[in-house]
């Protein structure tokens, strides 16, 4: 069995600051992490390898420094890492990204053996679109399973898989054929700590590094800015509300008295609410 896990190196957005004057993002010194959602995908892949054997290739598209994230993925137990890096990928939107990644996955299949399952996280924390996974599936004609909470059954001989998929209002149990693409739901597992030996190997491992040409991407017009139908025209900070919150006067009051004046203030501003609350509670 051969699994490809797509990961992305992202800035730790908890630490991103916006310049108060220029409104631009201050990325300097912000540490990068593996997109947290991707770790659920990686662990799900590792669990399948525990049960069925096989190899896991992690793939990322990004700047050369994204190698760091790949090494980290290796230290959790992935077998091989591929870095797709080329300046022509800069400015890719989801359509261009799914093109580049799907071509790289094709090449991984040719170089290291046919791919049975592609895993991605549900979405990234910097782009937040959840569209790259479905894009890859479509381009490679893989059966698409998004928001997967658990893999129920994998039958490699029959080439079939059954999963639980989070849907609106419930869980769909779906069965399909391999090869497939799974986007993994968050909170469904916890990434393991690799052994010391694995970690040491990860530090020394050779990262397979491909330019667009090396990955066999012939059509550069489909890459990066040129290959992106969407364009970001304006970036701006959300408008602050014109006034600050009206502070309820607390001078010398205990909690009960504060609660009373808070309630009065609420009902003053939302006159219909009191009646509605009384009705729903007594009705």
């Amino acid at each position, binding site marked *: 069995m051969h699994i490809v896990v797509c990961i992305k190196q992202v*800035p730790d*957005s*908890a630490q*991103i600051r*916006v310049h108060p004057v220029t409104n*631009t*993002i201050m*990325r300097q010194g912000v540490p990068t992490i593996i997109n947290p959602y991707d770790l659920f995908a990686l662990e799900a892949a590792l669990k399948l390898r525990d049960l069925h054997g096989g190899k896991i290739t992690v793939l990322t598209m990004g700047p050369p420094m994204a190698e760091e994230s790949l090494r980290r993925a290796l230290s959790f137990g992935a077998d091989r890492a591929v870095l797709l890096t080329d300046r022509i990928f800069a*400015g890719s*939107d*989801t*359509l261009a990204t799914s093109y580049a990644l799907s071509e790289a996955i094709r090449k991984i299949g040719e170089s290291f053996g046919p791919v049975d399952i592609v895993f991605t996280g549900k979405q990234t924390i*910097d782009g*937040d679109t*959840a*569209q790259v996974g*479905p*894009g890859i599936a*479509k381009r490679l004609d893989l059966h*698409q*399973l*998004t928001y997967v909470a658990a893999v129920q059954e994998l039958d490699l001989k029959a080439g079939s898989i059954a999963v639980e998929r*989070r849907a*609106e*209002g*419930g*869980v769909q*149990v*779906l*069965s399909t*054929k391999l090869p497939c693409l799974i986007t993994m739901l968050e*909170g469904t597992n916890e990434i393991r700590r690799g052994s010391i030996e694995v970690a040491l190997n990860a530090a020394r491992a050779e990262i397979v590094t491909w330019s667009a040409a090396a990955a066999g991407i012939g059509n550069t017009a489909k890459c990066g*800015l040129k290959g*992106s*139908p*969407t*364009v*970001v*025209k*304006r*970036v*701006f*900070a*959300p*408008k602050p509300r014109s006034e*600050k*919150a009206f502070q309820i006067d607390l001078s010398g009051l205990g909690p009960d008295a*504060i*609660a*009373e004046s*808070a*309630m009065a*203030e*609420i009902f003053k501003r939302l006159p219909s*609410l009191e009646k*509605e*609350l*009384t009705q729903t*509670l*007594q009705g």
Partner: protein
Amino acid sequence: MTSKPAPQAAGGGRAGMRKELPEHFKAYKHVWVFVELERGAVHPVSWELMGEGRKLADKLGVQLAAIVLGGPGEAVRMAVSEAFAYGADLAYVAASPVLDGYRNESYTRCMTELVDTYKPEILLLGATTLGRDLAGSVATTLLTGLTADSTGLEVDADGSLAATRPTFGGSLLCTIYTLNFRPQMATVRPRVFSLPERQEGRGGPVIEHNFSLLEDDIVTKILQFIPDRESSKSNLAYADVVVAGGLGLGSAENYQHVRELANVLGAEWGGSRPLVQRGWIPADRQIGQTGKTIRPKLYIAAGISGAIQHRVGVEGADLILAINTDKNAPIFDFAHLGIVTDAVRLLPALAKAFRQRISPSTHTRMAM
């Protein structure tokens, strides 16, 4: 307030490269809203989009169409008549056994057939698990642009769709265009837009699409659907009153005061993301950018600092009451009412006050 585009922004340099729309795309007209019908019910986000789609169509001087896919039977017909009540001018309908229950394969096929046949300029879908699954596949099949999780939709002077969405973890917003490709696609999260007024007695043409895909042609099968237990379902997004807690509460035990107040108010309860990460509340109770967007009449936030990721999920509330010990907490920048005090002491007092005021007779029942 205008600001300079960030130099880091993808595509920032391409704004000037705008070319005229290729000839074959000029036939693309009208605004479409995908009506999300599952197990007999339409997701309310579809009607929220219908309201917004109506405004776009009016500005463009074009028609607003509802796209309704589903199994054979009453549900599709009912959804179509609802779509008219919420503002659609016409409806495209495909009813087929292979569309009974959402599957990516059949829905993607059917949607792309419809787009290729009838050529809309704008296609809007809800950013639900279904809508996001479908939109990504449809956009990739059509090789067009898609803006996910938009929070604002406008049409420009030249008639192109300007979709605004949070970017970089929610601290900034950006406006995105789809140049030179059609349709222009966008998804929008539930509750970002409000529900439009229903108008009874509206109707319009219904165009039936003959979808010929057979069950044997579809590889993926639905083995089972396990509905969520009613008790575990949160109705946060659509609640009239929401009470939420943050790290300022200090402990999972103290969080119980939030539930108690919610109980008294008949409200839904939720919290900031760190509470989910600590296991104090389940993930579907998270409010904010990566949780639920809410639009209640009243939102009470206790011990929540008001980080931007939280803010974008609650700004649609009519009235926000913030309780925080720090008078400089950012939440006071967007709350309407503020109380600088210890939430752990105030929450029980609020529960008591409301209980006495609104349900004196059910005192003991509500005090569970």
